[in-house]
């Protein structure tokens, strides 16, 4: 075994990370993935003489993570792993884009966000996949959309009303967040704000993941009370967004009752977050070393009241939505992602669980409040829009139970502990289950204990390909519904 074995949030000295020739590392990766491991991270870091590639794999059953690295010189190339394992395709493209080190034999080497090794995307000739024939037509949507939606381009190749191929072009929201982390490494307040804005709908998810990474690097064990408040905030975020999604899914099929009912319930949930921290989306909630806002005993009662009422209301609303024949006619057998495809392309989160892939970081690699309260993994089989809608409903009820459980264990404790210096030359990977799925942040420190590299992966990065695959052979008019059933982030992908 040449890999270094760690747990989620366990920082490790850079010296302990094995460095291999790439062809040896490749053999190792192939062996590990064949044994059932899963790719978590595959990213490079620029150093003087070239690039270091870090690979992190996960063994979900045993809650273990494996790290190894490999060195490249500028202008090198390597044998692509994508032909064997498709889950690598986007990671290799990203690596090529950032450092110009070419994965040989990669089937689809187009830019991910901004262009390859300093050459901007506009200057690289690229043609979308084309379909030729009678009654074949192409529809381009975006990058500017109707309604308040982030920019992204969708190119459909259709035969009449049927979609045969969808190509998704992203990168319009690229803000250089990872570079901003390094540029502002001396300003911790700014970094926290930055982590909150990686994806506007996953504020608590990303800020918490960032805070835990920093806490791990500075050996800061936050109080039990702070941990409970963080867990509640994360689950409130999950409930809020899932309710919003159920409302929007109803809206997309013009089902007014569901749209109004779930929309009203969502407001109650995000207003609870508002009552805790003054922001409906959880801005300012998380601090490095704990939380900024306490839950007083009155507030605790208020939260309990709200979620008890919510539990009843959600059940009624879901009963109505999921028993309405006209809604089921739209949801069922639309946008199917089979279990095999979900595994093959490395999907995560509720979308993967709706296709029967049992991955949930809360139970596989527990973090924060979940290390003491194991979470049961919920999966469905059909992988269609219905499954992705229904899993949201059952996750809402699960999250309500988690919040109740956490509120019971409320103990006294310090809200925020000041962090000491970060450990020099260390590596940490922080995984969390946001509402959309696995969030992973990786931090590397330099010899002075300052951030040297910060790598972010939003679950959208894993799942965008699934949107393109799910609409194949569906009607053009079902695309918005399929898209909404994943509800992926553009800015989380573009960074």
């Amino acid at each position, binding site marked *: 075994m040449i890999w270094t074995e760690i747990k989620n949030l366990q920082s490790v000295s850079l010296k302990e990370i094995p460095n291999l020739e790439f062809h040896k590392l490749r053999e190792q990766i192939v062996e590990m993935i064949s044994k059932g491991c899963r790719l978590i991270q595959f990213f490079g870091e620029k150093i003087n003489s070239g690039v270091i590639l870090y690979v992190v794999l996960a063994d979900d059953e045993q809650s273990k993570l494996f790290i190894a690295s490999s060195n490249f010189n500028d202008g090198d190339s390597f044998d692509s792993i994508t032909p064997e394992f498709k889950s690598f395709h986007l990671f290799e493209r990203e690596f090529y884009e950032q450092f110009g080190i070419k994965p040989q034999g990669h089937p689809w080497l187009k830019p991910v966000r901004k262009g390859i090794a300093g050459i901007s995307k506009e200057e690289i000739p690229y043609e979308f996949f084309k379909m030729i024939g009678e009654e074949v037509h192409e529809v381009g949507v975006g990058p500017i959309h109707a309604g308040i939606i982030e920019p992204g381009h969708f190119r459909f190749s259709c035969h009449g009303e049927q979609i045969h191929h969808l190509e998704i072009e992203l990168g319009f929201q690229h803000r250089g967040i990872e570079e901003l982390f390094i540029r502002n490494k001396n300003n911790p307040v700014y970094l926290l704000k930055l982590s909150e804005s990686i994806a506007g709908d996953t504020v608590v998810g990303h800020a918490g993941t960032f805070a835990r990474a920093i806490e791990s690097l500075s050996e800061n064990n936050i109080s039990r009370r702070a941990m409970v408040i963080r867990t509640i905030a994360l689950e409130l975020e999950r409930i809020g967004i899932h309710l919003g999604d159920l409302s929007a899914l109803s809206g997309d099929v013009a089902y*007014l009752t569901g*749209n109004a009912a779930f929309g009203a319930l969502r407001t109650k949930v995000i207003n609870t977050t508002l009552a805790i921290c003054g922001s409906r989306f959880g801005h300012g909630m998380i601090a490095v070393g704990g939380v900024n806002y306490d839950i007083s005993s009155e507030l605790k009662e208020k939260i309990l009241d709200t979620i008890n009422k919510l539990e009843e209301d959600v059940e009624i609303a879901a009963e109505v939505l999921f028993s309405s024949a006209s809604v089921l*006619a739209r949801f069922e057998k639309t946008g199917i992602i089979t279990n095999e495809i979900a595994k093959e392309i490395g999907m995560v989160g509720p979308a993967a669980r709706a296709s029967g892939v049992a991955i949930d970081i809360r139970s596989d690699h527990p973090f924060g409040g979940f290390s003491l309260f194991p979470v049961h993994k919920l999966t469905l089989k059909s992988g269609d829009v219905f499954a992705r809608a229904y899993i949201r409903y059952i996750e809402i009820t699960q999250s309500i139970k988690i919040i109740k459980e956490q509120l019971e264990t409320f103990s006294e404790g310090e809200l925020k502990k000041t962090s000491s210096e970060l450990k020099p030359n260390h590596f940490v990977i922080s995984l969390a289950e946001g509402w959309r799925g696995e969030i992973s942040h990786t931090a590397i420190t330099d010899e002075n204990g300052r951030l040297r590299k910060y790598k972010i992966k939003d679950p959208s990065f894993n799942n965008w390909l699934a949107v393109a695959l799910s609409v194949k052979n569906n009607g*053009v008019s079902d695309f918005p519904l399929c898209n909404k059933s994943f509800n992926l982030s553009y800015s989380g992908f573009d960074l």
Partner: protein
Amino acid sequence: MLILFQIFILFFAPFLFLGLINRIKAIWAGRKGSPILQPLYDFLKLLKKDEVISKTTSLVFRIAPTFNIAAVIFAFLLIPIPSFGSTISFNGDFILFAYILGLSKFLMVLAALDTGSSFEGMGASREVTFSSIVEPAFFILIGTLALLTGQTSFVSIFSLLNPSAGYTELIEILFSVALFIMILTEGSRVPVDDPNTHLELTMIHEVMVLDYSGPDLGFILYSAGMKMVLLSTLAANLIIPENLSPALAIIFLVVIISVTSILIGIIESLMARARMSHVPQFIFLMTALSFIAFAVVIFFIRGGIR
């Protein structure tokens, strides 16, 4: 009196119709909703606005909304107001009625294609597909009535419908339901289309008018409401008894138009939109009902094919 009432129907009923649908939907959703006359305010606001006209378009794009509104108003003059009769009436006027509405749609489709946008092309193709199913069904429906009464103009058809002949109630029900389906299709309402969506890929009628702004857009919204009022007036002609006093007949008509819009509001509140590939099945229901009415007339009233 007729003129006054026609002016009322022409200028207010479409907006009230749309406003009432929105109000019903708001009530179902637990909201207060906008004023019932909001569509009228929107229309007046649009009339004051400037227009942005795409450079890729030609004359067709610019004249289509005006012809559209003219055609719809002309069609309105052909429809009898119960117990008053219609402004223009001649033998075979229902054919003109169907094709004057067809003309308005044809121009709107041309205008959509004129923009060269792939969305609008897609919308036009859907609109034409669904219209081509509605049109024959409408002719079977009116043809059945013509067969029943032996008349070929709206006014004489409706005045000669004899309630004592038996089966008339059955025909009235079939006719009303079939017309209601036609209203949902022509008015682009749920389950055929979703008038409130912002998702271009799922739109039918809305996507065809994406490039319009200002007064032209106002005319288009107005004519969509007008078409629904037209068809509900047609259904009212059948339902309202012949020998009512004019005042009562008009009250009856207003009630029927309101009930239609309330029904549409309720359907939109409680039902999801059908999948695009299933929409033709829904519209074929109208064809089926028309054929049943036709069969009833042929076999039970006329006593077989002679």
